[in-house]
């Protein structure tokens, strides 16, 4: 993996986040005068002018834009309308809960999905295979907000086993993580299955079989290694779905994360917080895309070489 490869990926990351931040800026300006939303409709002109001056809105757009970018770079993301404090202070304490939830959900998805997909492929066209495939379609079609509500209905209201929400007990994590992870588990199972089927049909697997490598070892040492690249791709892809899913899941289970903060901020039109969360989402996805690209080169050295030779 060459340095220029890493640098080009870094550049892409910066460009993506910059583009997302610019898009938000343009949308905010298109939406009209933010001061109008801050002051009463019968406010005298002098008050409006004072506000415009305070937020730099009397400056030309291009100056405002650079001030905005400078603010982002120096960690100043504006003031929350609701608290009057920095938007960052609202978002910061929400990061860890969201990481815990999305991390556990990913674990649920991989632990359920990958072995299920491998077993399904090893028993191609068996009833188990069909069961896994149906499960994967169910996971895709089941809205996570409905799944969450069903879980609350059964485990909280009916059997009184688990708390319906909150963050205080470790048990509180179980239902949100399952809600968020189950859809991805289906995707992992489906992808693992088709990737394993492809690998099983390849010549090196025939050789391994002919050499008498036992089935389990063939799976763990030959197949798993070969399907890691598509799995890493999916893991990168599913970050976006995970972020989107966290918005709904956190709201259903009153989980104190960024997703729930986003929903309340949208309801109350707390634009500074919304803007910061959009930038954070773009940054998260850009970082995970970059990590996927870098992991490719490490998992399958052929990819890096091909890219390099392709680039000239």
């Amino acid at each position: 993996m060459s340095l220029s490869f890493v640098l080009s990926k870094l550049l892409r990351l910066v460009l993506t986040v910059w583009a997302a931040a610019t898009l938000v800026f343009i949308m905010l300006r298109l939406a009209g005068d933010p001061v109008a939303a801050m002051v009463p409709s019968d406010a005298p002109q002098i008050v409006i002018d004072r506000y415009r001056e305070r937020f730099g809105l009397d400056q030309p757009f291009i100056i405002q834009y650079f001030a905005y970018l400078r603010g982002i770079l120096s960690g100043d993301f504006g003031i929350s309308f609701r608290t009057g404090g920095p938007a960052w202070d609202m978002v910061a304490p929400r990061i860890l809960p969201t990481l815990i939830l999305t991390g556990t959900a990913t674990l649920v998805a991989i632990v359920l999905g990958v072995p299920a997909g491998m077993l399904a492929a090893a028993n191609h066209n068996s009833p188990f295979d069909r069961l896994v495939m149906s499960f994967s379609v169910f996971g895709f079609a089941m809205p996570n907000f409905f799944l969450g509500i069903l879980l609350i209905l059964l485990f909280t209201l009916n059997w009184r086993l688990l708390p319906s929400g909150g963050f205080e007990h470790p048990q509180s994590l179980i239902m949100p993580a399952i809600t968020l992870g189950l859809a991805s588990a289906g995707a992992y199972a489906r992808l693992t299955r088709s990737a394993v089927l492809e690998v099983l049909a390849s010549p090196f697997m025939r050789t391994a079989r002919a050499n008498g490598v036992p089935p389990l070892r063939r799976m763990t040492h030959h197949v798993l290694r070969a399907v890691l690249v598509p799995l890493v791709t999916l893991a990168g892809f599913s970050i976006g779905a995970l972020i989107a899913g966290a918005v709904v899941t956190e709201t259903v289970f009153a989980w104190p994360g960024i997703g729930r903060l986003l929903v309340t901020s949208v309801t109350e039109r707390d634009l500074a917080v919304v803007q910061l969360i959009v930038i954070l989402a773009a940054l998260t996805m850009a970082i995970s895309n970059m990590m996927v690209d870098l992991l490719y080169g490490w998992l399958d050295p052929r990819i890096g070489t091909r890219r390099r030779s392709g680039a000239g």
Partner: protein
Amino acid sequence: MARWRLGFVIPAFLLGLVIAFAIFGDFLTPHDYGTSSLLNRNKPPVFAGGSWAYPLGTDGLGRDLLARLVFGTRISIGLALVGTLIGAVLGTVLGLIAARSNNLIGALIVAGIDLQAAVPFMIIALATLAIFGNSLTLFVVILGLYGWENYARLVRGSAMSAHTLPFVEAARSIGVGAMTIDRRHILPTVFNVVIVQATLNFPQTILLESGLSFLGLGIQPPFTSLGQLLGEGRDSLGRAWWLAVVPGTLIFVTTLSVSLLGDALRDRLDPTMRRG
């Protein structure tokens, strides 16, 4: 062949039921979806000891759940259809343009595809709603924009390879215009791709619509959609679970049947996928 038929007939039947419910549902109940009846609040459905006057019971304002379901299904499916159509047309046109534009416009479209894919659409949708405020028009625009980049990316790829086909080159060499080539020669070759993508996009649009409405940020009262009904029902989960479970099940049945139909269609339209 028999397997294919079964995989097609069952979801087609389910989807047909949902659509028939949306179209002819008015015949099932004499009540109006928005009229509340304070004397008939929180009536249980028939299966929980209620009467046939309100087969699925009423909500906390005494509104007939069956009538609300009919209306909500109409809105949810209608919005998802319109949203899918807008996204498919927009993405296809942009993809076609990008495929033949080796200039700034083509580069801008490709950059737009990348940017759209760089932030989860749910976040973009929420930010748009926060910035511009909620309105039905904006909501339709959001649903329409959802997924355009997938169509554009796929159409661009297929169209670029179609441009190298001999008959396209022949048409070009006798001076047929770019628009005519796109319409008469390129579009038919990318059509399957668009249809398959639409079957993937449609259930996702339903999920986006119902998700946003569930959060209270989509369809606003007095209108209702399946997601909004589910969101309302969530507040009375302990007392009347059916208010949430029935609309949720309808969403699930709809997305499930469209997804299964899409699978069957994909196998049909794309023979290389059939072995999986």
